[in-house]
């Protein structure tokens, strides 16, 4: 029993360690990164030999977690919302295989897209996979849910999704921890075909999963995370999920909420509790941070005039929820805009001073001026910032690895001198398979893997590409003569231009690997070194 000041992400990590976790698997992604980092730096985790090394992508992470569960141990896999798209195949099927050791899938959504390409709501995935969701309203609940979640997973024989959003992930609060549990011992699943999804077995498992839905819902009805609060004023009933609960309470500081309130933090949705508030109240306001999932289900296809929320315009259709939006929906305050004095200029993020990517782009821009605009397909990473002035270098950013395959598709369509610009970590995450496609057809593309030895945008985590890029490209079949490299520094500008130009003129697959360490990780190394001297 201990009180710690923890980010939501850290509370999840601490809870997993305390609950007898044997391995966390993840690829860095804002706002989920700090979960795994906390476990990597935790003493108990080290003493217990808890696996915490970064995986190559979310799919390999998910599959490793399933494997650890198969072997009887408790595993956790963490990712940002779009990471679940990458892991979706393994995720969907893990609901059908079920678990042996308890398994928690933590997904951190990013409504308002603070650091993301979209704001998809991961609850739909769990709904799709027919597994329970835990959605904490605060850091303490995040801790408790993970601490008890492994048992829930083992009891119901399915992975459990823990869904959070940016605000909880990156907000600190005091968290009371519980005693540290023993880790599970290795054990085989009682049925050695449980994880064999041959159609005949999968059909059987799937029927079991469907049959268990009533049990999951029954658990939601009784769950202490779901609560019905009586209220005298039945003109309105409020259903609030996850951190929306706090925004509701914020609007009634030191006052009682006059309306009946249903707090929902465990899914599948508890239909008895929902029916109760629905029947009691004249109107229902649904508050949720993300897509209108609960509201949509209540509305159905035919619509229900009693239900209010994001779909009716009482709350904004998109973006992160906040106390002011809730205040407006409750009629407690007037709609207001954020007023920024005209004189205040926007200050978008930019590449760090001295960044190697900048030197690569400076050379690339000069060469592309010769070949014409609109040919540089890029990817997810710090270098995406080159879409903005002053560099204005890239023309696409869709998903991890898409630079390589989009350049291929454009080249297939007849575009000459198509370029892919991707980082080292993103390349090993999802670029390698696309490169193999290019090699198979000898597609005329130039792939620049700007190698800074790290996963930069998320804060400099270990890159599984480290010292392997050259070998990987040759191994995939790129002609060694067209795997080029240079050190991206001002003094090498002319060399860089020459290499890029030569490879753009080559009608086949070229890979250029500019290689210089990230200035941030280098700075950190120097600091650590100074500390130890």
């Amino acid at each position, binding site marked *: 029993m201990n009180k710690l*000041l923890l*980010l939501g992400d850290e509370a999840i990590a601490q809870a997993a360690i305390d609950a007898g976790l044997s391995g966390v698997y993840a690829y860095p992604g*804002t*706002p989920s*990164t*700090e979960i795994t980092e906390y476990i990597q730096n935790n003493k108990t985790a080290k003493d217990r030999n808890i696996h915490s090394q970064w995986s190559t992508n979310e799919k390999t992470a998910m599959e490793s977690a399933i494997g650890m569960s198969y072997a009887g141990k408790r595993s956790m896999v963490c990712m940002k919302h779009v990471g679940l798209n990458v892991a979706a195949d393994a995720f969907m099927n893990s609901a059908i295989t079920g678990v042996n050791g308890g398994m928690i899938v933590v997904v951190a959504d990013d409504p308002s897209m*603070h*650091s993301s390409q979209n704001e998809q709501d991961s609850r739909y995935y769990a709904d799709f996979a027919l597994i329970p969701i835990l959605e904490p309203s605060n850091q303490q609940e995040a801790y408790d849910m993970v601490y008890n979640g492994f048992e829930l997973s083992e009891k119901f024989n399915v992975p459990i999704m823990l869904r959070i959003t940016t*605000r*909880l992930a*990156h*907000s*600190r*609060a*005091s968290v009371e921890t519980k005693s540290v549990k023993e880790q599970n011992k290795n054990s085989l699943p009682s049925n050695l075909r449980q994880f064999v999804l041959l159609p005949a077995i999968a059909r059987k498992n799937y029927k079991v999963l469907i049959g268990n839905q009533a049990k999951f819902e029954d658990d939601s009805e009784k769950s202490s995370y779901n609560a019905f609060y009586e209220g005298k004023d039945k003109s309105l009933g409020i259903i609030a999920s996850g*951190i929306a609960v*706090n*925004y509701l*309470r*914020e609007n009634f*500081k*030191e006052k009682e909420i006059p309306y009946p309130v249903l707090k929902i933090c465990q899914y599948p949705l508890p239909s008895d509790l929902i029916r109760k508030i629905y029947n009691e109240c004249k109107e229902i306001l649904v508050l949720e941070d993300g897509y209108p999932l609960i509201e949509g289900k209540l509305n159905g296809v035919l619509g229900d005039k009693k239900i209010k929320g994001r779909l009716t315009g009482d709350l904004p259709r998109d973006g992160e929820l*906040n*106390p*002011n939006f809730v*205040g407006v929906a409750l009629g407690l305050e007037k709609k*207001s*805009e*954020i*007023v*920024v*004095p005209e*004189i*205040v*200029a*926007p*200050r*978008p*993020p*930019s*590449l*760090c001073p001295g960044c190697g990517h900048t030197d690569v782009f400076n050379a690339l821009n000069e060469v592309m001026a010769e070949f014409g605009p609109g040919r540089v397909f890029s990817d997810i990473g*710090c270098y995406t*910032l080159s879409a903005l*002035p*002053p560099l204005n270098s890239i023309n696409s950013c869709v998903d991890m690895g898409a630079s390589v395959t989009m350049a291929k598709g454009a080249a297939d369509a007849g575009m000459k001198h198509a370029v892919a610009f991707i980082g080292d970590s993103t390349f090993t995450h999802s670029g390698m398979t696309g490169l193999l496609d290019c090699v198979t057809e000898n597609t005329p593309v130039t792939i620049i893997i700007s190698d800074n030895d790290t996963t930069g*945008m*998320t*804060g400099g985590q270990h890159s599984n590409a480290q010292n392997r890029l050259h070998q990987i490209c040759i191994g995939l079949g790129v002609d060694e003569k067209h795997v080029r490299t240079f050190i991206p520094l001002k003094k090498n500008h002319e060399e860089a231009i020459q290499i890029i130009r030569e490879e753009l003129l080559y009608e086949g697959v070229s890979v250029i690997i500019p290689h210089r360490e990230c200035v941030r990780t280098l700075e950190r190394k120097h600091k650590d070194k100074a500390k130890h001297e």
Partner: protein
Amino acid sequence: MKADIILAGVGGQGILSIAATIGTAALQQGLYMKQSEVHGMSQRGGDVSSNMRISSTQVDSDLIPRGKADVIISVEPMESLRYISWLKPDGWLITNAKPFNNISNYPDIEEIYKEIRKVKNHVIIDADEIAKEIQSARSSNIVMLGAASPFIDMDFDTFKKALETIFGSKGKDIVNKNLEALEKGRSYTMNHKGN
């Protein structure tokens, strides 16, 4: 008591060191707190802010509602104005005078000061200069905290104790420099309130 504080600055300026000090002080007092931070993309030289909420009763929302912040502490003058919608009518805006110019269209600094002076309660302090004067350039954020301290409803000694806790492992000299920075900031505000 309650203190809702917005911390503002540019990614890399280290606003979280101010948050850490206030947070440590609050915890030592047994107060409730929530503090939301910015991680990820914006940290690359973009505008960043942190919502810090301290209270003797439980804190609900991680976000401060607009128009409810007691204090804005900004380590950069233009950034202090970005969050003005959050300041309550009689709240205080405390800003560093020194601009951080990493954009091509940074406005005329005098015009920015003019806009800041339109805020009823404000303190503009050259925290960088004061930190340099005491030969502790890295303590400018603690100067800022000192300047804001009269408007945070917590005993001044609790901030001192927090600095001792945070910097204790780095030796007496560093602790003393930061204590001096805190005092200098505070006394500047006491002498220049509402200029």
